[in-house]
């Protein structure tokens, strides 16, 4: 009997010690100012450079150190992680509807679009084509994709933000040029019939196209396309279609988290920094489209001007687009029929 009790007491003590240790570590961590930025996959290199520029500027101005940690993943799964308790101070996701998912969980203010310039996006991007060297199949525009014998590589819109943007871009390329919804539906149906592999995520598609040599054209983010060309050492090249979608990856601080961490001011300064000329230059360098006209003009060579239509061209807003195209039984599902 006695032994049992002793064991129990020891266990409690042990438990107490462990909890105490964690608590202490947590409290100690909260004293130095740290920001956690939850972002999507392709932005690793971009944020690394912006963070370096920002922390040195911050130190010069405020006199204190600020460290910024990054968390990368699929845009949708990052949003879920924050909803489920990832302590991100700021979210810099790919698609505004992912940010809105955090709003729905009550962690982020509904009016986040009005808190930073340009609806919260400090840069834009789009979907472009990557083709084999010398463009042997002569792919120049969206209608070329559905010519017989062309194989298209694009990730699954159900599991990838990149895939969704490609689907919306394809749809809008028809309706923006006077085609009807029925025309657009026929076009995307044919397009996905010519997709031999639906990778789950964007980088998987890149591997399929470049490493495995499958497909004639790869639909991808503009910045990923530039990376792909650099890494493929000249075996592929970018083709800019005359028209594509305007993606507006938004920045926002997560109210519930910054309040708890006491980092609201720092988070705001951090995100405002992304709009400064210095950061805008870094953005252009990594092949995202800066919103500052001067920085954009300077990089016209690598970011040529094409017609970019907003999401409202294919749906009422980003949330509606997601529901309308990739919701259960909606446009994307109707493309595939039971075999």
């Amino acid at each position, binding site marked *: 009997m006695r*032994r*049992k009790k002793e*064991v129990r007491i020891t266990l409690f003590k042990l438990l107490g010690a462990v909890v105490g240790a964690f608590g202490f570590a947590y409290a100690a961590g909260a004293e130095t100012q740290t920001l956690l930025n939850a972002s999507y996959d392709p932005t690793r290199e971009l944020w690394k450079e912006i963070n370096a520029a920002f922390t040195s500027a911050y130190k010069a101005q405020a006199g204190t150190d600020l460290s910024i940690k990054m968390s990368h993943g*699929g845009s*949708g*799964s990052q*949003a*879920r992680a924050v909803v489920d308790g990832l302590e991100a101070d700021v979210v810099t996701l790919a698609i505004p509807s992912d940010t809105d*998912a955090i709003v729905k969980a009550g962690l982020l203010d509904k009016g986040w679009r009005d808190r930073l310039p340009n609806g919260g996006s400090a840069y834009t991007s789009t979907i472009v084509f990557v083709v084999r060297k010398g463009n042997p199949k002569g792919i120049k525009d969206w209608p070329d994709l559905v010519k017989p014998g062309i194989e298209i590589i694009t990730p*699954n819109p*159900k*599991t*990838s933000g990149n895939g969704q943007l490609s689907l919306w871009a394809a749809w809008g390329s028809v309706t923006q040029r006077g085609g009807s919804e029925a025309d657009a539906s026929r076009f995307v149906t044919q397009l996905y019939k010519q997709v*031999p*592999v*639906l*990778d*789950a995520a964007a980088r*998987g598609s890149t*591997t*399929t196209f470049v*490493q*495995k*040599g*499958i497909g004639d054209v790869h639909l991808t983010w503009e910045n990923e396309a530039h990376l792909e060309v650099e890494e493929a050492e000249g075996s592929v090249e970018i083709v800019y279609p005359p028209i594509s979608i305007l993606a507006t990856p938004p920045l926002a601080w997560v109210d519930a988290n910054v309040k708890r961490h006491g980092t609201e001011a720092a988070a705001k300064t951090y995100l405002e920094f992304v709009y400064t000329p210095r950061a805008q230059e870094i953005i252009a360098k990594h092949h995202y489209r800066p919103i500052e006209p001067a920085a954009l003009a300077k990089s016209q060579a690598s970011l040529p001007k094409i017609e970019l239509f907003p999401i409202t061209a294919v749906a009422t807003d980003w949330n509606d687009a*997601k529901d309308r195209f*990739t*919701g*259960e*039984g909606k446009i994307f*599902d109707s493309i*595939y*029929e*039971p*075999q």
Partner: protein
Amino acid sequence: MLDINRRILPGFGLSLGYTLLYMNLLVLIPIAVLAIKASQLSWSEFSAAVFNERAIAAYQLTMGASFLAALVNLVIGLLIAWVLVRYRFPGKQIFDALVDLPFALPTAVAGLVYSSLYVKKGWLGQFLVPLGFQGAYSRTAVVLVLIFVSFPFVVRTVQPVIEDLDADMEEAAACLGANRLQTFTRVILPTITPALITGFALAFARAIGEYGSVVFVSGNMPYKTEIAPVLVVSNLEAFQYKQAAAVAVALLVLSFSALVAINVLERWARRKHV
């Protein structure tokens, strides 16, 4: 104070407590949460998420491919276990260690390697694809990679049993006039059958849950090469947590009933032959 009925491990109460705590924390609580999440759906929502045509096609592929993979591993695994126990050859220990490699290798890596080997321009694919063997982005690819990830189970469950086999029994069988086939089916097989079935069940269950490698080799085409775990991810991506949980519960029920059936089979085999 001496315990009257001595056990090798002291403290039955404590060890049982830990067992229960562990089972709860690791297995039961997560599964309960899953079930609760799924149960928040109305019946019509649940059946829409779980029983739509596309999902059913995915379950069929998942179960079918896992079954085939486990079956292949049953045969090949037995053969390899036999070779590793009964023969001596240079490099045997290395081969023995290699068996566990599929456990250690991140499965996404396996998926990437397999798909790049078997695509049209891959090392193996350039010979196999012209012969009509599509080892990447097909159902065959799914089976192939599932064979890989579930490979060690049969070998590792059967190996110790073969090691314990009494060679005298085989000699006795031979002396009594049994030919090789008879010795195998009447003497060896009955002894190792329960272990074989266990290995098969483990391999099967492992294959059903596999996601990482399959998404890289299957091509994820709805109705053709889309496995059920991909549906879970696509539901999550649409922020449909409950629907994702519902599909997960359906998968769980399917694999659990398969495991129970295999367990019953194993007991039956044990009773019949021992």
